[in-house]
């Protein structure tokens, strides 16, 4: 089958892009590995920040439900769920494997909204059952209603570590501590205060030294770190936990982009290797667009806006909307995106995106 746009990844970025394109007359296919569209939104039970007019105050699960319903109601969109994208081929085709076996779909354009994967950290015992990524803990609790254990050490105080700690407590699981290697909490202060008043200590300049246990996690030792992030002997503390939850950051999932021959660059502020793309989210391979965490680790509100910009740009590229209308609407979205990223806590991602802009401008100039 040939589509005008093939979207890989049915999370906030991919669904927003698919909708925006389809609303402008583009025939879209969405490929997603999960049975249910929504990506990480299906387990995000916290209320979103941002503008009220753009869904702030609404829980991620509800935002996911609204996006999903809008996509399913859209006649221009074909949905392949439970379907893995196995590989991208130079004839603009994608090999997919789904419930009805392996097949090939082609696209005039592609939007890779493949998201991110969690980072693992090194410590003795990190291969024991009971050491989880925060995403898995959230899936167990919020999708399947299963408690991961009775008592948890959370490693990492970014928004994910803080939010999952809160949700563990909502599920009746104890959180002994949140350890953070940096001298400051990584996530929003409101999330930190929310878990702190539940009695969960947040220990900055601390990390896990080792996990204990024979068959599975039976405890953990944490310690204080010096200025060079080395553990300080003598500061060890043993914690009675059966779960160690790692919320130590994300890195963009770019495998298909590498395979498609898209130019990639290493931007630490965006979580690792990211594609080089312009203000329309188009990579240096014409017709291949990116959005969401695959384009730089950020969060769902900005991912949705980037997805919309990509979907709109696809519609313009395919001649579905006139150039001036595209630019008008794109500029509105770009202004909203810039405003969301203009706060003091976004300085890191701003630096990251400036690096990419500089690369793009440098190449255009040469």
């Amino acid at each position, binding site marked *: 089958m040939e589509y005008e746009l093939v979207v890989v990844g049915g999370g906030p970025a991919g669904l927003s892009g698919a909708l925006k394109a389809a609303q402008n007359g583009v025939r879209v296919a969405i490929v997603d590995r999960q049975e249910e569209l929504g990506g990480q939104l299906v387990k995000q039970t916290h209320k979103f*920040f941002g503008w009220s007019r753009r869904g702030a105050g609404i*829980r991620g699960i509800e935002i996911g439900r609204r996006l999903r319903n809008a996509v399913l109601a859209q006649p221009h969109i074909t949905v392949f769920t439970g379907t893995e994208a196995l590989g991208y081929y130079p004839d603009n085709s994608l090999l997919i494997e789904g419930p009805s076996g392996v097949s090939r779909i082609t696209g005039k354009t592609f939007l890779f909204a493949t998201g991110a994967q969690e980072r693992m950290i090194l410590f003795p015992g990190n291969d024991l059952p009971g050491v989880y990524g925060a995403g898995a803990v959230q899936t167990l609790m919020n999708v399947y209603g299963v408690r991961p254990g009775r008592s948890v050490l959370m490693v990492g105080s970014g928004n994910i570590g803080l939010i999952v700690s809160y949700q563990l407590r909502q599920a009746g699981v104890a959180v002994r501590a949140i350890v953070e290697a940096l001298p400051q909490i990584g996530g929003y202060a409101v999330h930190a205060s929310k878990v702190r008043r539940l009695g969960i200590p*947040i220990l900055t300049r601390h990390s896990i030294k080792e996990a204990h246990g024979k068959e599975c996690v039976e405890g953990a030792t944490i310690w204080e770190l010096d200025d060079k992030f080395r553990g300080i002997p003598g500061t060890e503390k043993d914690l009675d936990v059966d779960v160690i939850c790692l919320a130590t950051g994300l890195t963009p999932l770019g495998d298909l982009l590498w395979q498609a021959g898209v130019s990639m660059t290493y931007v630490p502020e965006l979580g690792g290797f990211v594609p080089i793309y312009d203000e329309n989210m188009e990579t240096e391979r014409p017709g291949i667009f990116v959005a969401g965490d695959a384009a730089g680790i950020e969060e769902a509100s900005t991912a949705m806006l980037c997805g919309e910009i990509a979907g709109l740009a696809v519609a313009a590229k395919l001649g579905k909307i006139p150039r001036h209308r595209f630019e008008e609407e794109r500029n509105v979205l770009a202004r909203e995106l810039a405003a969301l990223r203009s706060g003091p806590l976004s300085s890191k991602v701003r630096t990251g995106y400036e690096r990419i802009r500089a690369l793009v401008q440098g190449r255009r100039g040469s």
Partner: protein
Amino acid sequence: MKNLYGDLPEKDSLLSSGIPSVEDLDRVLPPPEARRKGPVAVLECFQKIPCDPCAQACKLGAIKEFSDVNDLPVIDWTKCTGCGQCVAACPGLAIFVVDETYSPEECLIAMPHEFVPLPERDQVVLLYDRAGRHVGEGIVHRVIRGRDKLATPVVWVRAPKALAYVARALGLPESQGRSGN
């Protein structure tokens, strides 16, 4: 150091522990005339993040409209009636309502509370400070469940007056919700 906010750890800061400092809290403390008047919202929002639902939730225009989505909320104390709409709306669960005029000995505190089972009216609950330490007991005055099951419930608690600016979380005795910590 003991003060209006209880026993806040001195060396820690909002960004190192999650516990706001006295200076942080002083900046959002309603003026004496507002506190004497009746219930009033206390916006414990100290960090510029892109977020504006409180201003939208306030039907009285007491929380000023944001010119930049990253602004900190600004409240007009003369317009705030302490209705509690913003408490349920705040995505960061950072807003409370305090009524120090409830009775000579007791105050009312409205707190966002996203734990089940929800307490019932007249039930005794345990009160915790911003560090999660048990600081006393309160009695549930009202429970506002909100429009649907995704809304943030708001629990109004009668508490000793000294806890008006100290208690910021609640739990049921031998609660399921507070196991372990």
